[in-house]
């Protein structure tokens, strides 16, 4: 098994942190192997941001992603750029707060107002955790409690509860969306 994930948006949305947490959850709290990489632009804030995670139950030799099975897009530019590259039959999670149009692809598209939900929870900065919850809820690539353990390790002290709340909000949203899909 080798699964490729891409998290794309703008600098400052916390996508690299989300990717590190996903990789850490696998590496430190399960038997899975994980590798995380990211594209580095010269700007620290704004500009396109992309973080990749490969999760596997075998050695990960080539550490880069070709066609992700799961793609999260949290900005219009990211959607335009990366959605066409998603694997056939893969999954695209779209933050409808910022992404208004999604190129047509042969993949399952999951739409959810991720950033809006984070605002409702108290701070938009935890949108990355809502997104991570959705990603984990939809793909089930790693157990929820492994991710929660990684969140607690990684996020700044004092923000654990808010981040966990945001993550679970994403998990709940994934459940709802899936049951709705099944009901269709």
């Amino acid at each position, binding site marked *: 098994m080798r699964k490729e994930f891409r998290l794309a948006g703008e600098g400052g949305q916390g996508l690299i942190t989300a990717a590190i947490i996903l990789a850490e959850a696998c*590496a*430190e709290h399960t038997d899975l*192997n994980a590798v995380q990489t990211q594209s580095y632009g010269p700007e620290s804030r704004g500009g396109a941001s992309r973080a990749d995670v490969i999760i596997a139950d075998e050695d990960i030799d080539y*550490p880069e992603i070709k066609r992700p099975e799961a793609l999260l897009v949290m900005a219009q530019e990211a959607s335009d750029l990366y959605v066409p590259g998603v694997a056939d039959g893969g999954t695209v999670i779209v933050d409808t707060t910022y992404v208004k149009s999604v190129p047509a692809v042969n993949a399952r598209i999951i739409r959810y107002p991720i950033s809006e939900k984070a605002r409702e929870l108290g701070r938009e900065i935890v949108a990355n955790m809502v997104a991570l919850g959705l990603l984990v809820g939809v793909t089930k690539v790693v157990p929820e409690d492994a991710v929660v353990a990684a969140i607690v390790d990684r996020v700044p002290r004092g923000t654990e509860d808010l981040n966990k709340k945001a993550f679970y909000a994403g998990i709940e949203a994934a459940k709802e969306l899936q049951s709705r899909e099944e009901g269709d």
Partner: protein
Amino acid sequence: MKDAGPKLLQGNEACVEGAIAAGLKFFAGYPITPSTEIAELCALRLPKVGGKFLQMEDEIASMAAVCGASLAGLKSMTATSGPGFSLKQENIGFAVEAEIPCVIVNVQRVGPSTGMPTSPAQGDVLQARWGTHGDHEMVVLCPSSVLEAYTLTVEAFNISETLRTPVILLMDEVVGHLREKVVLPSPQELVVKDRELPAGAKEAYKPYAADQGRIKGVPPLARFGDGYKFHVTGLTHGEDGFPTNSPKVGEKQIVRIWEKIHSRRKELSRVEMLYPEDAEVFVYAYGSTARSAKRAVKEARAQGIRACLIRAMTLWPFIEDVLSDVKKKHPKAVIVPEMNLGQMVRPVKRVIGDACPVIPLNKVAGQLIEPEEILAAIKEAV
């Protein structure tokens, strides 16, 4: 850092943890992408282990301070990337000539000049060997993974301390920035070596007399401030450390510091061979490119092609013996993928000669060579 057990670490972080495990007590550096995380983590970690971190005014000063601290007895390191590596070369040569143990990390990016600061390359492998002027050997280690960024940093210190020589750890941007699952060796598993201090009367101490120590060709090194009152210079010198005008004494010294490494080529050689037994096509690769090469060789095997990966962790001294053995196996081809325009392919070719085609596979686009590209080259060769 967390205790034992698997963790997700970045290559640059693993390098720092390896250095600290090896006994690093002094780091001087200057910010440069993509090595900066090494300096940042040293700034945070070193004072906690009683070590010292200094951000110097420039790359040259960093290398100089590293030499000074090492002479005063501390295990010392600096880290940089292409442009900074060029700037450090003169003082790297000083460390060679004055036989000062230290570790220089170069996380390679695309050059020449400022190039592509955030993109990987392997364009410094010949500079690492020959960047400083004059005749000398150089020990250059090259990790392919986050775990090796740790273990080879420990090795770099061990070699540097025991042979009294600078050692270069040549990473690339992919390995430096990659986060990967690793299980680090426990302190009990780790072999950490320290330089040999002189024994005997202080007045009789000769800092460059090779017959005084336990290790052949390597003089013990006293610490500044311990009362030995010895002299260290970048001028060609005699056994007493003082400059010499004698051609004979001068040549003897130059040959000895070359010989102390050259004569140990075999023991310094770190190589991983994947499927060597019945192979007919060989791939010589190193650094992050070796990860793509490994994928390609596994895929080739799956398709029934008898391919072998020669993954060099020691770039210099060149793994001549390994390649000589390969030559004896009557290979159909040796493929050399590199993120440069063909640098290590030359020493490979020098050993293989006309025994079979030596095929370069090059990329300088700031992108990792893909397994498919190497696989295609393997298929074409058989």
